[in-house]
């Protein structure tokens, strides 16, 4: 799928098969290299699904433990990053279904990159984080899976344990709500997102 962010993460260099073999045999140093290389991806996925730092850290840790246990099942037909990306997604969605979540005041997470991200005119990281944070839980998770990560609806239905039709309705409502929130950040109702707010770095 052209819009899928799987492609972005799939471009991270995979660990060499020798490194993977060593990690699979229990070499802690080899596994640590994997954790260090992919922690940003795994944590980002967990944060976007769960919406707060405490839960995201727990779920990201769980994702790496599942990775460790399942290393012998990894087959090189998939790229390692895509395989781990899916482990991170399912660990995060499972965590959300299982744990009592920690409500936290919304706080924009730190980005790894130095420069301000290009998210569209008048939309910055804080706007996106706040808008996602304010979405009802039931809308946020499917909307994140669909539009942040480009997962097919069928996969979202399976991951969240909800019927396909319900998932679609939730994503549609999530988008409608985000549209209003992102526009509310802007100047006027007729302007849409584009040109709604002068960029702080302009």
């Amino acid at each position: 799928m052209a819009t899928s962010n799987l492609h972005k993460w799939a471009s991270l260099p995979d660990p060499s098969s020798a490194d993977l073999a060593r990690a699979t045999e229990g070499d802690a140093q080899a596994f640590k290299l994997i954790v260090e290389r992919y922690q940003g991806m795994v944590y980002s996925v967990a944060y976007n699904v769960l919406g707060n730092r405490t839960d995201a850290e727990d779920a990201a840790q769980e994702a790496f433990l599942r990775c460790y246990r399942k290393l012998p099942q990894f087959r090189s037909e998939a790229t390692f990053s895509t395989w781990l990306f899916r482990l991170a997604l399912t660990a995060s969605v499972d965590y959300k279904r299982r744990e009592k979540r920690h409500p936290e005041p919304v706080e924009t997470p730190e980005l790894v990159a130095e420069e301000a991200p290009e998210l569209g005119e008048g939309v910055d990281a804080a706007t996106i984080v706040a808008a996602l944070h304010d979405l009802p839980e039931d809308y946020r998770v499917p909307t994140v899976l669909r539009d942040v990560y480009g997962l097919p609806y069928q996969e979202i239905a399976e991951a969240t344990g909800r019927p396909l039709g319900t998932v679609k309705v939730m994503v549609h409502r999530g988008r409608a709500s985000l549209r209003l929130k992102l526009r509310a950040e802007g100047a006027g109702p007729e302007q849409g997102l584009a040109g709604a707010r002068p960029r702080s770095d302009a």
Partner: protein
Amino acid sequence: MDCSYFRERINLYVDGELGYLEVAELQQHLSFCPDCAAELAQVGEVRGALAAWGRLELAPPPAFAERVMAVAELEPLPGSPRPFGRAVSDTLEYLDEKLGSIPLPGGRHLPVKNVIGWGLATAAVVIGFERRHGRRSRELTPL
């Protein structure tokens, strides 16, 4: 057909879920309805912003990798036979994911896995007791 009919379809359109004729019908409406055209543009902008957000890497908390390693080192080697306790807790974790929890009065939740876990523990004790006694009685019985 009024706009609400097409508003429904805009989401299906951006998801690529409309058939050829439905797309043609929507595009025809968009060509003379600036409101629906604006809505389509905005949905596109929201999706673009979300996809761009998803390509960004958030910084994990400090010393995250070290904490993961500290927990991973307590694990048995990958692919090694699961110790019995580990296998039981994996099973319970799986059941937990599938079954969730039983709501209790006062807003608390009793995880279903705990109920099953207690059941398993009781069964293990009973079976162990039976076995010891069974073996002993066999040992004592002259052939």
